[in-house]
């Protein structure tokens, strides 16, 4: 199979996501699509798989032009995409999701479906129970389901968008073996979108690099990290330096705490976080980090045990009390949990202010000052949803108190471009040097290792502490989050 993309361009508002990209892919190869966040990789792949129409350009599949903007046309042409959040139906069972979308002729509970499913799973070593509801699967399992489904539909080109985020090392190796076999034995075109160089170097036959919407390079493997990095960034990035900050007294303590979440329980542990300390939480989705982050801020009740903030008992108190004590939680979904769409920047400022009556002029001035200080591209009267993701996160930072006691952050740089991500960490580190403790999660192990003093790995409700983050490698961390606790 041969795919040719010719002069693909796409813009979203003022942003040129893809600029005149022309490239070809051939069957039997695994091709890495590299680039930093916001480089245009996902957009290009969505165009290829029909989930987005391009503004201009053509796609030829074995010489035949592909109808644009139609996922079913792409599927008919043999192109399937595994999205970062796999597109399945949570209320279905695995087998129902497998069948839904299949061409007619396979009854819902028919033998043929079950057999096909089981056979495909066995071939790749996927362990999936057909009657399990999709809502209870981990991301890795949902990926496997989608891969099996796409294969059953007869795709000849499979696109995987950031598949290794949030899966364990073990699941990753199962996946990579499957992909290798699909490409080299079956002749599929495998496109792997990733910003993880080590994955691409290990798995791919070649790689293309996107930067700021343009195709900047096509490289055969093996290539060195330095080569790829220079293509991705245009220069070699100096690693962010962190000043050494003396750690103070514990500002937050969880003592003999048991947490019970919807699907996970963390039993009987004690955690002390000291002033100025950055603790990173690593683990697969649903291993307990989210539960921990929220319990620390009083958003989830402790099943057992006590929580102290600056030696004050805070067990069972409302989140507002935690806020008053300086413990602030920030969720991954900025607009869903943290900012109010429809409210202006000034209204947000007023909302977190004091006093029963609002002095609008004063609030407007305060907002303008914050906008300036935090370099937010927006005006006090702008609605928050009109700002870009990076600016929203900056504004969210601006709403925080000056020196909080502890910041409990869920994926603080999710969806941000490099610039904004660095800025956010600058802000966080500056607060840290004034004594703020930081507890955060990130699916990006690089981020976890780069910024943490200490790392806690969560797996299935068990916690494993790495006392010195500078001593651990990404590889080891990857194995730990898969449960390989020594």
């Amino acid at each position: 199979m041969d795919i040719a993309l010719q002069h693909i361009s796409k813009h979203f508002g003022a942003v040129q996501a893809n600029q005149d990209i022309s490239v070809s892919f051939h069957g039997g190869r695994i091709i890495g699509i590299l680039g930093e966040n916001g480089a245009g990789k996902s957009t290009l792949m969505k165009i290829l798989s029909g989930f987005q129409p391009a503004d201009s350009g053509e796609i030829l599949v074995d010489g035949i032009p592909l109808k644009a903007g139609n996922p079913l046309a792409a599927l008919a042409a043999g192109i399937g995409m595994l999205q970062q959040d796999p597109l399945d139906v949570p209320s279905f069972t695995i087998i129902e999701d497998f069948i839904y979308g299949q061409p007619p002729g396979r009854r819902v509970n028919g033998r043929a479906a079950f057999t096909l499913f089981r056979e495909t799973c066995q071939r790749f070593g996927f362990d999936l129970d057909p009657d399990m509801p999709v809502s209870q699967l981990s991301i890795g399992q949902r990926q496997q389901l989608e891969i099996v489904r796409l294969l059953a539909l007869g795709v000849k080109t499979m696109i995987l968008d950031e598949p290794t985020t949030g899966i364990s090392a073990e699941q990753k190796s199962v996946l990579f073996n499957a992909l290798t076999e699909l490409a080299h034995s079956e002749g599929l075109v495998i496109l792997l979108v990733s910003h993880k160089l080590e994955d691409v170097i290990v798995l791919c036959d070649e790689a293309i690099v996107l930067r700021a919407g343009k195709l900047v390079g096509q490289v055969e493997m093996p290539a060195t990290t330095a080569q790829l990095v220079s293509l991705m960034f245009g220069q070699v990035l100096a690693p962010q330096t962190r000043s050494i900050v003396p750690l103070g007294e514990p500002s937050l303590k969880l003592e003999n705490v048991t947490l019970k979440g919807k699907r996970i329980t963390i039993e009987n542990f004690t955690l002390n976080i000291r002033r100025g300390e950055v603790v990173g939480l690593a683990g697969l989705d649903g291993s307990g980090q989210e539960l921990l982050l929220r319990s620390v801020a009083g958003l989830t009740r402790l099943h057992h045990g006590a929580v102290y903030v600056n030696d004050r008992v805070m067990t069972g108190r409302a989140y507002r009390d935690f806020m008053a004590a300086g413990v602030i939680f920030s969720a991954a979904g900025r607009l869903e949990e943290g900012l109010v769409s429809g409210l202006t920047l000034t209204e947000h400022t007023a909302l977190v202010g004091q006093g029963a009556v609002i002095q609008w002029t004063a609030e407007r001035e305060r907002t303008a000052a914050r906008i300036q200080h935090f370099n937010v591209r927006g005006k006090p009267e702008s609605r928050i949803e009109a700002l870009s993701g990076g600016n929203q996160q900056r504004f969210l930072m601006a709403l925080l108190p000056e020196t909080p006691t502890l910041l409990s952050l869920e994926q603080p740089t999710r969806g941000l471009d490099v610039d904004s991500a660095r800025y956010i960490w600058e802000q966080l580190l500056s607060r840290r040097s004034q004594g703020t403790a930081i507890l955060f999660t990130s699916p990006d192990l690089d981020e976890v290792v780069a910024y943490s003093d200490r790392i806690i790995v969560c797996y299935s409700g068990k916690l494993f502490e790495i006392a010195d983050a500078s001593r651990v490698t990404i590889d080891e961390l990857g194995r730990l989050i898969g449960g390989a606790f020594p």
Partner: protein
Amino acid sequence: MNEELINILNSIVANATPLVIAGLGETITERSGVVNLSLDGSLALSAMAGFVAALGTGSVAVGMLVAMLVGAGIAAIVAIGNIELRQDQVAIGFVLTLLCADIAQFLGQDYTGLAAITLPQINVPLLSEIPIVGPILFEHSVIVYVSYVLIFIMWLGMFHTRGGLALRAVGDKPETAFARGTRVNRQRYIYTLIGGALVGLAGAAYSLAIKPGWSNPPAMRGDGWIALAIVIFGGWHPFRVVLGAYLFAALRALSSAIQRSPDIQIPFVLLNMLPWLLMIGTLMLVSGGVIDRLLNLMPRSAQKWMRNFLRSEPPAALGTRFDADG
């Protein structure tokens, strides 16, 4: 089992039937992601329209058809208002429920208290001779048998056909449905109209069978809200919705039996409040997660096929709009 008890049970089945039909109709609509809040007004208007049409043409069949068309028409307004015109389903539905009740009262003012024309009663041969069960289930107006068939078709369709998969996907995760080739909004139109037609049929079930004729205030007032609550109580599963309808009718029958009995002295006021207290109570039960906890107590193998029946979560995309862009 004595005669009177059998009669009571028989009347429970009959009285529950309109709730069953309306509940099933709304279940389909909500499974596709649309809330048809106009149910209460819709029942009234379609009941009146069906009655008037039947009187006018002398044909019950025509009456039923008209009622179904009215129900579907009202549902169409909800669907169009939501899908095409991007307005909130709840708002449109609420205005419609008031409006349709008013229209029914206004247009029906000359028809109150008129002699009724009803669907035929049939005792199903053979089946109605089964001891106990026979007289309870098989000596009814035709509409009751229609409801039996509906229950079965609904269950079969929803869980054992491809169409059912598409329906559930549309209400749960329309993005996925779209990616799998389902035309989301078209499905929503279709199922909202079907649901509306069933609501219309339920209206006809009142005015042409179970509570024949038309009165002011209408006999079925408030039942639309009960039906909406039953759908929630029923976890959007046909069997459980039907169970809810029968339970409700049974409790109503119990309440009137108590009212009539000279032995038990419970103040009327409490008994009249009972349906509403029940409605609130069952909703509290469902939201409190009691049923979910029940599911988790069961052995794994039983969970497998009970899961659909005991689920209490609404279709995840219920009440939201789907805009297929790009």
